[in-house]
């Protein structure tokens, strides 16, 4: 089966150096980029699916020109090729434009499953996959904890995490599935994988090649950051070193003062 995974290079949260530039947009040059953590679960899910059912995995990213560096790390996990949509006009693209561009980029690809991560560690909006599904009129199965395709029947079963457990969903393929950590820990690339990734194809597409109107994207910058500030600092931590019963009483007094318990 053919699988496409939407991937986003994001600032490495471990560095703690993320910041906005003077234009109030994310300064992508400030911190090294990594593959978004939730997207790694989608890549891992795709790898397990092709191990079980055969097939190939294509990654699709909309990202700045230096993204292939990051995409190679995902290819080293075992994905087969990448498609990189990059264009000056996409700098600062909002969620709506991103959904439009990604939908256009995957429209021409053949796939049974389109996978995406639940959200990204930078914007964290988590709204792009639903937008892509709506634009492509694909069955949309989100928050997946298990993915079971039946290639012969051309259907896929997904366990969707619900408030009280799981909903089991079934849809014809092609379908878009949003992946979660519950699908399993992403593998580390092997040395062989890293070597192989060097020669894997990453096709670059301009905005015009996706068929999306560039002016439309630019004009559709639907929102803007007006300002920012560090979060309010918390008051200094009160430290309690007492016996357990006394410490318990201290906790309760503290909660009573704050009217959390009566």
């Amino acid at each position: 089966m053919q699988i496409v995974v939407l991937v986003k290079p994001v600032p490495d949260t471990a560095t703690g150096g993320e910041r906005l530039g003077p234009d109030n947009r994310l300064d992508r040059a400030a911190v090294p980029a990594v593959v978004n953590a939730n997207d790694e679960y989608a890549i891992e899910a795709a790898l397990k699916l092709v191990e079980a059912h055969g097939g190939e995995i294509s990654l699709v990213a909309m990202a700045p020109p230096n993204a292939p560096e990051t995409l190679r790390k995902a290819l080293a996990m075992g994905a087969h090729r990448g498609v990189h949509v990059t264009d000056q006009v996409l700098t600062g693209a909002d969620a709506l434009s991103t959904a439009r561009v990604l939908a256009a980029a995957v429209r021409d690809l053949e796939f049974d499953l389109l996978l995406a991560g639940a959200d990204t560690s930078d914007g964290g909006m988590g709204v792009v996959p639903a937008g892509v599904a709506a634009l492509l009129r694909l069955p949309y199965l989100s928050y997946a904890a298990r993915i079971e395709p039946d290639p012969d029947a051309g259907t896929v079963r997904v366990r969707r995490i619900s408030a009280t457990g799981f909903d089991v969903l079934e849809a014809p393929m092609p379908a878009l599935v949003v992946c979660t950590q519950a699908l399993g820990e992403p593998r580390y690339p092997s040395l062989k994988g890293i070597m192989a990734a060097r020669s894997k194809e990453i096709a670059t597409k301009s905005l015009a090649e996706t068929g999306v109107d560039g002016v439309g994207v630019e004009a559709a910058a639907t929102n803007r950051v007006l300002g920012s500030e560090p979060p309010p600092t918390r008051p200094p931590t009160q430290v309690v070193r007492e016996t357990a019963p006394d410490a318990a009483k201290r906790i309760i007094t503290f909660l009573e003062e704050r009217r959390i318990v009566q």
Partner: protein
Amino acid sequence: MTAFWVLAETGPDGGLARISAEVATLGRSLAEAAAAEVVGVVVAAEPDAAAAELARYVPRVLAIAEPAAADHVWAMIAAQRIAALVEERGPDLLLAGAGPDGRDLAGAVSVLTGRGILANATAVTWQDGGPRVEMSVFGGKLVTWSGFSGPAGIVTVRPNTVTAQPASGEAPGADSVEAVTPAGELDQPAVPIVERIEEAGAAAPIEEARIIVAGGRGVGGEEGFELVQEIADALGGAVGATRAAVDAGWINYSQQIGQTGKIVKPQLYLALGISGAIQHKVGMQTADTIVAVNRDPEAPIAEFADLLVVGDLFEVGRALVDELRTRSG
């Protein structure tokens, strides 16, 4: 007249979801500030109960009966009906909850109506003729406020951003709910729910809990989480966990808080045996009050907890349960 729509979800009992009562409360106060009209919208197989409840929060409610929503995934169906109604009536601002269904709904409505989204608001005010949407970004390292370029947009609001408060005054009349049928067919394939699996111990969505008692690696195992559950029960709260505890199989992924789990904003976050690594911190640091119990006074959580008890979480936790039970008699 400027119009704000509150896109409501139904809860497990078919009534109004708690997050939607909060969003309706927020919508009403924004409408007052903007001298705008606020309208609630309910899409469900049987929308009447939720619509009647929503009418206690906002003066007018549009109820869309959609039979397919009974046994199909809700968000995509609702998005198409709402998008059709938006095209018909042209409201300015759409407000939805930022839970899993609200996100899916907002993402689809955005592309179907060409409106931009500001997601996961932690506060929304009305300023200079538009919404000023506060969001927490970069794992809470920065607070931003944003607006829309044009008059129209979609805002999703995090649970516990406002306290749900019905409108004062008379009870709503029967005419405050209007049954509507948007034009058009559903051309997005609806996804059937073939089975619903209830998990033991699964409670209300953890994002909505006012009190969360969370356990980390220090809890040590499934038995340890029984104590965490006892404390949560005694406080009337929900159980949360770190990724380490979920990865170890001590508790379900649905309870995980942090970068690859849920983002929560409870009144109280009681952290037991949690070191407070950045990946966990991003999920809970906007809690109003953070209390931690940890053996290690140097753990990162010591830097952002309001109260840190240095000690054994089992001893302190057990004492806490005893004390709470004594008090409640």
